[in-house]
C-alpha cells in the first residue's frame, strides 16, 4: 500500500487527537469529555494505522473505544453528575499542577531538542502485510509470561471491580 498524502493525514489526525485531549480536560460535563476522548482514541487509531501497526489500531478501536469507553459512559450514567457540574471544576492547587505539567512539557522539549539527531531517519521497511501474525508470534512466544500475567491482572481487576461496586454479593 502506498500511503496517500501522509503529512496531511498526520496533521489532521494528530490535531484531532490533541484538540480532543484539550476538550477532555476542560469540559464541565463528563459525558462530553468522554465523547471527546472517544474521538481522540479513534484519531489515534488512525495514527497507529499510519505507523503500520494495524493490529494495535484494531485493538484500540475494539477495546478502548468499544469497551473501556462504554464502561466510562455507563458509570457516568449511573453516577448522577449534575451536582458536580455546578461546583468548581478545578481544585485549589490547579496553578501548581499547571506549573508542574509545564515543567514536564519543558523537559520533553529539551529532550527532543537535544536528542533530535539520535533518531535514525530512514525507518526500516514496515512489515505491514503480516503484522498481526508477527505480533501474535511475539505475544505467544517471547512475551508468553507477560501475557499470562496480564490475564491474571484482568481477573483480579474483574473480581476487584465486582467486590467494590456491588452492594450485596
Amino acid at each position, binding site marked *: 500500500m502506498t500511503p496517500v498524502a501522509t503529512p496531511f493525514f498526520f496533521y489532521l489526525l494528530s490535531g484531532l487527537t490533541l484538540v480532543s485531549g484539550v476538550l477532555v480536560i476542560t469540559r464541565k460535563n463528563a459525558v462530553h469529555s468522554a465523547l471527546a476522548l472517544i474521538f481522540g482514541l479513534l484519531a489515534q487509531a488512525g495514527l497507529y494505522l499510519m505507523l503500520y501497526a494495524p493490529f494495535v489500531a484494531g485493538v484500540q478501536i475494539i477495546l478502548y473505544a468499544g469497551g473501556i469507553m462504554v464502561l466510562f459512559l455507563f458509570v457516568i450514567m*449511573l*453516577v448522577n453528575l449534575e*451536582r458536580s457540574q455546578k461546583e468548581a471544576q478545578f481544585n485549589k492547587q490547579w496553578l501548581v499542577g499547571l506549573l508542574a505539567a509545564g515543567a514536564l512539557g519543558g523537559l520533553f522539549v529539551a529532550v527532543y531538542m537535544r536528542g533530535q539527531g539520535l533518531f535514525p531517519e530512514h525507518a526500516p521497511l514496515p512489515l505491514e502485510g503480516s503484522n498481526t501474525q508477527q505480533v501474535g508470534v511475539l505475544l505467544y512466544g517471547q512475551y508468553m509470561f507477560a501475557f499470562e500475567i496480564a490475564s491474571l491482572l484482568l481477573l483480579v481487576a474483574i473480581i476487584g471491580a465486582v467486590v467494590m461496586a456491588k*452492594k450485596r454479593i
Partner: protein
Amino acid sequence: MADPITKDPTSYLSHLELGEPDKTFLDSNELIINMGPQHPATHGVLRVILKLDGEKVLGTECVIGYLHRGVEKIAENRTYTMFNPYVDRMDYVAAVSNGLGYCEAVEKLLNVQAPPRANYIRVILTELNRIASHQLWLGTHALDIGAMTPLFYTFRDREEILKIFEKYCGARLTTHAFRIGGCQYETYEGFEADVKKFLDFFPPKIDEYEELLTTNRIWVERTVGVGKISAADCKALGVTGPVLRASGVKWDIRKALPYANYSEFDFEIPTGQNGDTYDRYMVRMQEMRQALRIIRQAVERIPEGPIMAKVPKVMKPPVGEVYHSIEAPKGELGYFIVSDGSTQPYRVRVRPPSFVNLQALDIMVRGALVADVIAVIGTLDIVLGEVDR
C-alpha cells in the same frame, strides 16, 4: 387508592413508602417509572407506577379512573330498559355476557323466566362472545410478549364471530343482543348453519394458535413460572375466572350456580396447577374448546317457541334487592340491583371481574422483571372500560 383527580403526584405513591424522589438510581437502586396511561401495553388507559430496582419490580401501584364514565350513576337516572345498552360499554369485548348478566338480574328482580328458546340463543351468543373475548386476549397478550403474528390470526377468526353477531342484531361489538325477558330478535335465516360452519371452522384455528405458541421455546420461557399466584391468594383477593381456575380451583359459576340453561349442557371446567401465566394461557385455550362444545350441544338442541317472556311495558319491579352473577369470559360478573319500586333502579352496583382481578397484579409481579409486568397485565385480561366503568 389515591384520588385520581388530585393534582399532587405523590399522593399516588402512598403504599410505595417513598421518601423524597431519589436523585440517582445508583445510590438507592430505586427507580420510579410511570407506565401508562399512554403506553402500548397497558391495554387501554391503565396507569401503573412501578418501583424498580434496576429491572426488578419492588412494588406497583395501579392508578385507574381514566375511563370512568359513571355507568353506575347513570343507571339511577334511566329506566331498567334504557340502562340495558350501557352495560355493553363496560366490557366492550364481551358485550353479550354483560347484557346477559344485567337482563337476568332484572328478570330475577321481576321474577320472570326467559323462555327456553331465548335461553338457548343466549347461551350460543354468550359462548361465541367468550371465544371472541379470549381471541382478543390471546392476540394482544402474544403481542405484548413480542409475538406479532398471532394477533392477526386471532383477529381474522374473530371476524367470523362478529359477522354472526352483525347478522343477528346489526352490531358487531356493543351488540345489545338481549332484552329483559328474552331476546329482541328471532334468529335470522341460516343462523344455525352459520354457527355450525363456525364450529367446524374454528378447531383447526385453535390448533394453529397452539402450534405458534404452546411449544414455542421462547413463549414457554416467558410464561412458565411468571406471575404466579396461589389459590389461597386468589380466594383472598376475590380473583375469579380463568386466573382462579389456572391456580387449580375448580370454580365456574356456570357449574356452581347455573344460570340461563347451562345446567343442561355437558362441559368441563379446565384447570391448571401452578397458577402461572402459561397455565392461564392453557386454561383459556381449553375454555375456547369447551365453549365450542357447549355451542354444538345448544345448536343441535335448540327448541322452537317464543323468544320473549311476558314483561310489562313499564317495568316497576317490587321493592327489594337482587344480586346475580354470571361467568363472564374474564371471571365473575355480578350485578347488585336495589329497586325502590319505581321505574328506575335505586342503585346498581356492578362487580366487574377485571377490576377485582387487577388487584392481583401487585402480588403477581413483586420480585419479577419489567417485562413480566407486561406479561402479567396481558394475562389478567383486563378491559379498562370495565375496570373504570
